[in-house]
């Protein structure tokens, strides 16, 4: 019997462009076999970059995403994210809930880099798959090119490959076969 198709609600907040959103939707569809619906987050939710540029608490953002969540929700935001422990994170996820957030604030290519928006979209895609991986119960992986490898720097994000390693892939297949997942802890 074929595994049920995961449904993911991808929302764009703040100044995240439709091009980046579309690229992320495309890689998530390809890598997870997911059915992705792309929408813009309600302005009232204040999930985008704050007017004063202050960081947003990734945990609090996940909490607000969780409220009323039906499908798996993935938020792409231009807000810089932090946690009470870490000065910044590229993203965060509530394992099993499943909500995830990815910040583009630190993923942009330098102004002089000709790959510009394409590189941003590629990094956003990798981070989105990484956080969704956490959301579906994966922990960090030591395989050098696996998407679940831990990254503290943009360079480490770039060093990741474009796919999950076979062990992580097997785990995802098991999760998708089992159906909807149960709420758990948050990962960043």
């Amino acid at each position: 019997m074929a595994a049920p198709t995961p449904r993911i609600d991808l929302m764009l907040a703040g100044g995240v462009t439709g091009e980046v959103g579309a690229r992320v939707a495309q890689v998530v569809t390809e890598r997870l076999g997911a059915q992705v619906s792309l929408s813009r987050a309600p302005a009232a939710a204040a999930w985008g970059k704050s007017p004063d540029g202050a960081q947003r608490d990734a945990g609090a953002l996940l909490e607000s995403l969780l409220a009323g969540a039906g499908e798996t929700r993935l938020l792409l935001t231009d807000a810089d994210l932090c946690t009470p422990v870490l000065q910044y994170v590229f993203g965060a996820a509530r394992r099993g809930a499943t909500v995830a957030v990815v910040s583009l604030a630190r993923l942009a290519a330098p102004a002089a880099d000709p790959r510009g928006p394409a590189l941003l979209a590629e990094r956003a895609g990798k981070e989105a798959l990484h956080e969704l991986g956490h959301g579906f119960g994966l922990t960090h992986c030591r395989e050098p090119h696996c998407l679940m490898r831990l990254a503290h720097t943009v360079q480490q994000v770039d060093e990741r490959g474009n796919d999950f390693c076979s062990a992580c892939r097997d785990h995802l297949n098991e999760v998708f076969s089992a159906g909807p997942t149960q709420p758990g802890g948050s990962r960043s």
Partner: protein
Amino acid sequence: MNGQTRILVVDDELHMRSALADWLGDEGYDVVTAAGGEEAIRLFGERPADLLLLDLKMPGIDGIETMRRIRTIGSSVPVIIITAYATIETAVAAMKVGAADYLVKPVNPEELSVIVRKLVTHQQVLQENIALRKQLEKSYEFHDLLSKNARMQEIFSLVRSAAQSSATVLIQGESGTGKELVARAIHRASDRAKGPFLAISCGALAESLCESELFGHEKGAFTDAKFLKRGKIELADKGTLFFDEIGDLGPKMQVDLLRFLQTRELQRVGGNEVLRVDVRVVAATNRPLEHMVEEGTFRRDLYYRLNVISVFLPPLRERREDIPLLGDHFLRWFAAHTRKNVERISSAAMGILARYHWPGNVRELENVVERAVVLCGSNLITPEDLPEPLRQPQALVEAGPDATLEAVERAHIERVLAHNGWNIQRSAEILGIDRMTLYRKIRRFNLVRTKPVPG
């Protein structure tokens, strides 16, 4: 490798410690958490961690005090102090008690990752170093004796062979060279190891008591002999009897001992029964026995009976290569027994130990290291922890017949520098060399100014 690395995260706030634990767990470390200082100390006592992440402000025992208590149980585990309330005072206090690093919440993840990896690697290298050093020491070990000196290695080999027979051994050497340790090594390496090892200090026995002490007495043999008493020789049956300071044995006892060595039989004082005793005799002295034989103060026939196998232990100044080895060995022993976190002897302090002439030999070195461990206020023994006489330049090398030209030159330069308050110009003039040459020699001999002159 990370799988075996255990990190203890201590924070009173649940979300903080679980966030840190999750994050470090994701990095591949084995993470345990504690909600406070007491719990951390208990957990650490049950199973030590390789790294500690300690919150500074906690109810009860704070981070600094927790670290101090963990240090007092003899652990040198690296500690990272993390706080949301950073001040210069707390940072200084953390560093004073030996924190490896100090981070402010929220921490930079890249920085935390690098620091943790660096400390874990450093700790692993340290552990490997200790294991290798122990392995190396093992090859220099013979029972409780430790040496890499060629003459000492020959002695170990001789003792190993001598232990296989019952032949009498005479050990000669200056006071503090380890004569009793050699005697015990002979006993332990022999097939008598399960039998008794009894030591008699001949210098401490009055001639009148010595006979009864060695041969025992029957009840009523003399006024105070209310009970039968077995002597040391009889009690050492099937074992080893060690006569320390044999040169101090009186003339009558020399005759009695000689008779026993010839017949291996004895009679208790006041008794008629002849007892046959199977005992190995080892004797030691720091006096020139051969010279005493020539003078007529020690019996020649007894000397020959004792001197079947002869061991001459060199003084410590003639096996200087052993000073760092023995110094480190004593340091670890005393640090463990006093539960002090003293890890090593600084190169300046080791330089002083290596150059000192050690009239009291290994025993003196042992006492100096014990004193230094007790007095040491950090994890490093520095020249200031050594006794004042050792730090005096004239104490370093006496121009005896065994001193090398280089050692004498070094000692003389050090003496002139100390005498002139390390005034380079004046010292150079006295030594008859130019300032640059003196600087070069100071560098070459690694001379250190131990007591700077104010101003």
